[in-house]
């Protein structure tokens, strides 16, 4: 009986010999353009650059959307009153450094987390903005496209920041998003002017926060290269 077992095993092995060679071997990362890269992961520097570029784009488009909205809907005398009369930014409550001295003191980790907080807190309001703008009768299509684009890219940015955090800080991803903390309140449909002003406030606040994100990320990059010379 034992001989039979041994024979069977031998036959089995003979039959399965091709599969023994199909074990995947991880190769060195080759950054070859024009060929499929064999790197298992993107480098940290590259990732950071991409995140920064992403943030820059988001800021630029948000700026364009805000100015478009301002020309279109906001009456002239009210244009300078952005953060007044009760319309405050929704992210004001977040523990985000705002002054330069604070920013200089904050660590990399907190920089990244601040960015992530910002990003995550803006995802939902932008979606809401999208629906609000659709309600306007004469909203230009360019404005709608822009806002839509921004909301999509913001989600992508969030993913990137998460990956970056994981790569830089070797932390696991925090699955809980800050935006679900109820910062944003849905109001009942207000009157036209109030709606306009609220949206206007929303866009301008987002523009400022996008700029803040970009600044944080750039500061982070600067710290990566030259730690003592960054402002």
């Amino acid at each position, binding site marked *: 009986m034992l001989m*039979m077992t041994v*024979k*069977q095993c031998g*036959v089995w092995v003979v*039959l399965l010999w*091709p599969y023994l060679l*199909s074990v*995947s071997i991880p190769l060195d*990362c080759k950054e070859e*353009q*024009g060929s*499929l*890269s*064999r*790197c*298992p*992961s*993107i480098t940290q520097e590259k*990732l950071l650059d*991409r*995140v920064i570029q*992403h943030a*820059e*784009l988001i800021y*630029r*488009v948000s700026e364009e959307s805000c100015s478009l909205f301002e020309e279109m809907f906001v009456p002239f005398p009210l244009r300078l009153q952005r953060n007044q009369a009760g319309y405050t930014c929704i992210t004001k409550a977040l523990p985000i450094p705002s002054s330069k001295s604070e920013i200089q003191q904050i660590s990399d980790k907190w920089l990244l987390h601040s960015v992530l907080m910002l990003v995550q807190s803006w995802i939902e309001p932008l979606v809401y903005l999208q629906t609000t703008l659709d309600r306007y009768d004469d909203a230009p299509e360019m404005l709608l496209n822009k806002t839509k*684009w921004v909301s*999509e890219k913001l989600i*992508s940015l969030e*993913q*990137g920041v998460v*990956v*970056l955090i*994981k790569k830089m800080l070797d932390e696991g991803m925090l699955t809980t998003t800050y935006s679900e903390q109820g910062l944003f309140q849905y109001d009942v449909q207000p009157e036209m002017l109030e709606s306009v002003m609220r949206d206007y406030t929303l866009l301008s606040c987002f523009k400022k926060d996008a700029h803040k994100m970009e600044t944080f990320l750039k500061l982070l990059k600067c710290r990566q290269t030259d730690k003592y010379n960054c402002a």
Partner: protein
Amino acid sequence: MLWFSSLTGQSTLVGAGGGVTAAKVRRGETENSCHNCCRQPRLCGAMMRKGVEAVLLLSLLFFTSHAKATRYSPPGKPALTRCRSPEKETFTCWWEPGSDGGLPTTYALYYRKENSETVYECPDYHTAGENSCFFNKNDTSIWVNYNITVVATNALGSTFSDPVDIDVVYIVKPNPPEKVTVSVMEDKGWPFLRVSWEPPHKADTRSGWITLIYELRVKLEGEDEWEMHLAGQQKMFNIFSLRSGGTYHVQVRCKPDHGFWSEWSSTSYIKVPDYFHREKSVWILITVFSAFIFLILTWLLHMNSHSLKHCILPPVPGPKIKGFDKQLLKNGKSEDVFSALVVSDFPPTTSSNYEDLLVEYLEVYIPEEQELTLEESKDLHDSCLKSEGSTSDNDSGRGSCDSHTLLMDKREAKEGERQTDQEESQTEAQRQQKDWDEEELTYTHEDMVSPDMSSGRVKTWPSVFSPLPQYTLSPLVQRSSLEMAKQHCLSDSLFPPSSTSSYLIQPGNSTKEALGPSHWDFSLSNKQPQLLHPESQAHSNINISSIGHKQTPVSLLTPALGRTEYVEVQRVNEEDMVLLQPIVCGEGCPQMRQAEDYSKVRGVDSDNMLLLQREVAKEEVDMCPYDDQEADGSTEGCYTSSDINTNQKPPACSYTATPVQDNRTLPASGYVDTATMFTLPTY
């Protein structure tokens, strides 16, 4: 045994068959063996051997069956050929299947995200075509790498491909640019192509998500090589230096920052219109025009070559000497040449014509204080010696004959003169004298005709007589005065009407000048034949001198240098003699001797000639101590004394009319001093 059969389908059958036969054998044998086994142990061992054979047979069959399975096999190994993303938001992967093993094979793509063990399968196998996997926007992330594997599966097995790592950013290959338009435009007469395009509609270049750079290529129809142009990020491009009338092919492609070049867009065709090289035509016109002008200039130059040659290279003037013969010079005979130059009448010889050059002019100057004394004798003013042209004289007082009034008087006197001429008797001497007079008249006439008042050479001898009517004259005197009017007193002495009191008659001191005596000839109306003889002598002298005098007045010579004597007419006595006396003059006057009275007018001969004689105490004719005066002699000629009453008559000097030595008489100025030439014949 069971799983054996499960794995190899055929072998099971064989095994089953073998088992059946074995079973049959066993059954057969069992029927026999059961009856015999119990009775015979040798039959059981035979059954055991048969079982082992069966197993071996089965295994052989298994192997053979396995060896015979080439028609059916597990699929070959697939391979991922490429993964591309058109806009960095989605991407697609294509693979190449391996051999399918003869059996239908299915393929599956599994991917795994970076740092995650979760294996996902491809969401879309159909959008991108066969053997492809399409990842949409939600599944695409630029933050992480993708690990993709393709698995080929058929009835016999599965085959895994080599995994591939994908970074979406680096696999971007955009679509070709769209809406490529080519048009011909003009830039100052030169055409050029303007190519414009748009980015592929999927690529989001507006927001900056992708940054594209473009490239285009151009070629002429029929050529093989393309001309590449890199356009950068702009969406428009100009192409210059076109061939007129050609057709061009244009294509455009694009590329992101990190990625692949897109495919070339579809070809755009453009035909360049024909245009003429304006620049070339202008040059042709200019060339033709300048050639034409050049031809004209050459022709003109040829026509005027001779005159131009003269202008640029003027000919050397030849010698223009009268009588110069170039031929002689060329022949080499210099003596002939120069002898030909000799002109016979140069330099002028002196001998024959010197007399002609003597001017017989005496200037009579009348000082005012002796006006009274002269009044009487004025009419018998027989000698009116005037020197002409006193410009070069030592005596500066002359020239009074220049006045205009004198000329007028001249004319008057001339009239009278003519009348008197007719009255004259015609003797030979007279005739001669007349001739001479006529000549003189003619001369005067000439002078009258063409008076030259300003030069001081006016012959004013008639004017001498103009004031004469003022004086109380005896009829004889008057007549004589009239006759005197026609005297040959050719002079330009000044005779102002007011100052006619005294006349200075200067004897020609240089009596050697033979012409002098001619002026002393005054024809008086009274006839004194007795004087004829001496007069004839004088006449002869006079004639000689007159002959000589005929010619000289033409020249109107001014009085020559030399010493002059001044005499003044004291009076005309009853014998019709003009008494002269020397005058005391100022400077310039030669020394005057008052030792003698000179030139007492003896009378007027038939020819109306005033004969002067020196006051001789004894004899009529007395040799003047100065008789032997030579031409160069002193000028102290005979002086007339003022004392007429004195009977002391200095010997009349008769100066021979020696030929004037022209050499001396000729002044430097070329004028002949009439005063010096006069000789004072006295008797």
